[in-house]
């Protein structure tokens, strides 16, 4: 059973891990290969702040809330294991600030210690008169991805730096199942009008006195188009912008100015902090996450594809729940193929 994963961001690597964990003992001849043009530290997952938090509201996408919760619970369980530091997972508390009253977010029962901000706390943030405090998890891509790659390599998973041009390419090479985790560039493999980049730009700052994340939500702007400050284990990530349809991965000085001014207004202690670097990345934005099977006929061969892409700005937040769902779909494929002699692999 030859499995190829396209994409080595958090989605690709965690799905590979999940499938290996669940099937390597029952599928004697299971091999997993990972193909990607970019590996850590150059993936979208690496540039992200690494903060677990879904968008405020799921607007009916309850499956996504379920996957978010599964991810949080999984990461929380890892926290008490000796691996947590090496995986880049730790707790951090902070503030979600709203310019006006807003209903409680979808994640209020998932995170720890969720409560409303008191009047005195809100006095620290002029312009925001409503909000919440809670403890959430950090999961830093620059640490988590290398840890995942190590884990997979130790179990015989092979990695290839190669841009896959088509599913057919892999089918012709003898791959049985493709796990498509190609993120924002999934459209290159199969056109998807629902998929579009949500460009983000961030500034990494040296400000170790900050121990809380601060996210702001303005009714007028969309998520992440409003200032946010997220301390990491080494540097603080300051953002944000969310520019739909913008494919540029270059840093933009106008964005930098807007981000920096708004952040210093929100957190005056940043004023003299040392700026280390800028980075721009493309969130793989989609109306819903695409997590489904598709049988694709490629001339002589039919190939099973499991799509797992389109996680927008919440890939790290949702990754484990999606990996488990993808793994479940994988199980279905194996079961079906076992039943049908013609498709025996």
């Amino acid at each position, binding site marked *: 059973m030859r499995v190829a994963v396209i994409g080595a961001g958090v989605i690709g690597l965690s799905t590979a891990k999940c499938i290996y964990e669940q099937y390597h003992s029952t599928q004697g001849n299971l091999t997993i290969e990972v193909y990607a043009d970019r590996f850590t530290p150059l993936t979208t997952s690496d540039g992200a702040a690494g903060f677990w938090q879904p968008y405020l509201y799921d607007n009916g996408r309850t499956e996504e809330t379920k996957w978010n919760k599964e991810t949080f619970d999984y990461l929380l369980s890892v926290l*008490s294991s*000796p691996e*947590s*530091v090496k995986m880049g997972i*730790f*707790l*951090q*508390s902070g503030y979600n600030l709203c310019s006006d009253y807003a209903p409680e977010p979808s994640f209020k029962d998932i995170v*720890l*210690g969720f*409560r409303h*901000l*008191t009047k*005195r*706390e809100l006095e*620290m943030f002029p312009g925001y008169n409503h909000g919440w*405090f809670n*403890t959430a998890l*950090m999961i830093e891509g620059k640490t988590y991805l290398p840890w995942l790659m190590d884990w997979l390599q130790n179990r015989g998973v092979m990695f290839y730096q190669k841009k896959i041009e088509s599913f057919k390419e892999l089918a012709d090479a003898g791959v049985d199942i493709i796990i498509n985790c190609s993120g924002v560039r999934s459209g290159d493999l199969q056109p998807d009008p629902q998929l579009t980049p949500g460009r983000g730009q961030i500034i990494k700052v040296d*400000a*170790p*006195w*900050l*121990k*809380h994340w601060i996210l702001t939500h303005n009714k007028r702007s969309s998520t992440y188009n409003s200032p946010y400050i997220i*301390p990491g*284990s*080494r540097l603080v990530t300051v953002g944000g912008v969310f520019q739909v349809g913008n494919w540029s991965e270059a840093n933009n000085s106008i964005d930098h100015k807007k981000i920096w001014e708004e952040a210093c207004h929100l957190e*005056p*202690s*940043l*004023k*003299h*902090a040392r700026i280390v670097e800028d980075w721009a990345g493309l969130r793989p934005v989609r109306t819903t996450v695409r997590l489904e099977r598709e049988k694709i006929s490629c001339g002589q061969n039919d190939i099973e594809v499991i799509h797992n892409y389109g996680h927008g700005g919440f890939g790290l937040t949702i990754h484990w729940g999606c990996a488990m769902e993808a793994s479940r779909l994988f199980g279905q494929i194996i079961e079906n193929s076992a039943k049908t002699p013609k498709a025996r692999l």
Partner: protein
Amino acid sequence: MKRAKVVVVGAGVIGFSTAVCIAESLPLCAVTLVADQFSPDTTSDGAAGIMFVSKYPDIDLERQKRWFKDSFDHLLAIAQSDQAPEAGVMLSSGCQIFREVPAQTVPFWADLVHGFRFLTESELKRFPEHCFGQAFTTIKCECSAYLPWLEKRFRRAGGKVQQSHVNHLQELAGTYDLIVNCSGLGARSLVGDQEVHPVRGQVLKVQAPWINHFIRDGDGLTYFYPGVHSLTVGGTRQEGDRRLEADPAESEDILRRCCLLEPSLAKGKVLGEWVGLRPGRRNPRVEREVLGTQGSVRRVHVVHNYGHGGGGVTLAWGTALDALGLVKQILNDTGPPQARL
């Protein structure tokens, strides 16, 4: 116009806070700060500097609340300003946990910090030996940065600094009109206050940047406080113990106790150890006194501000303001007409 000459004895957090309050509020006074030890060699320097305290037994509760609130408001304003990094002031969240439910579950400062609440049952599951806890956000003030920052402020307000050892306050009576005594543990010999005694504390500095929350055991012996660059991990409380050298066996025990609360601490890098002698006293002494000098008509007014035990950083600004009030009283009541306010 003759200015009143004020001397502040002591360069710890109490000394410099009081000196700044006086120099900034009373521009007609010439303020000099005298001490033998300065940052980084004061008791304040090694303190974690996290804002919360135990209640003192004999001081009016409203006064203690006022001390706490004045200090909190002062430090919060710095934390919210561009001065925060230079002053070493930051917000810090965490919890205090207890093996037995304490007599007072809501401390007097509960509504003075941010977001005070009890830990839920599921949060307590993490600490199987503890049955009660409180979570809140407070302020951390690191004196290794804060003291130099205060000194800058003091000098900008016209203050002068002098390094010398004072054996008796009377030595200063000839030169100064008013003495402010912030000598901490030194008050035991300086003014003969037998109530002041050392309470030794040993801590480790550990690098573990993934730990963002403080945890303190309600017994005050086991705690860790994430700071700007490292964690302060402790501790000990040894009454009457004057040993300034770190004890390796105690360091091991401190780490063991703290790792029980936070296992990932074991992965941290120990940067060093530090020992400080808290200026223990039943209550802090914040009051005025008149000292006569031998064979001389000249009396000298003294304002005492010492004996804060482990609550020095927490109550520095509040007690400094109280001391300032006493200084003003003295200058109004008794000073030469030129210095009357």
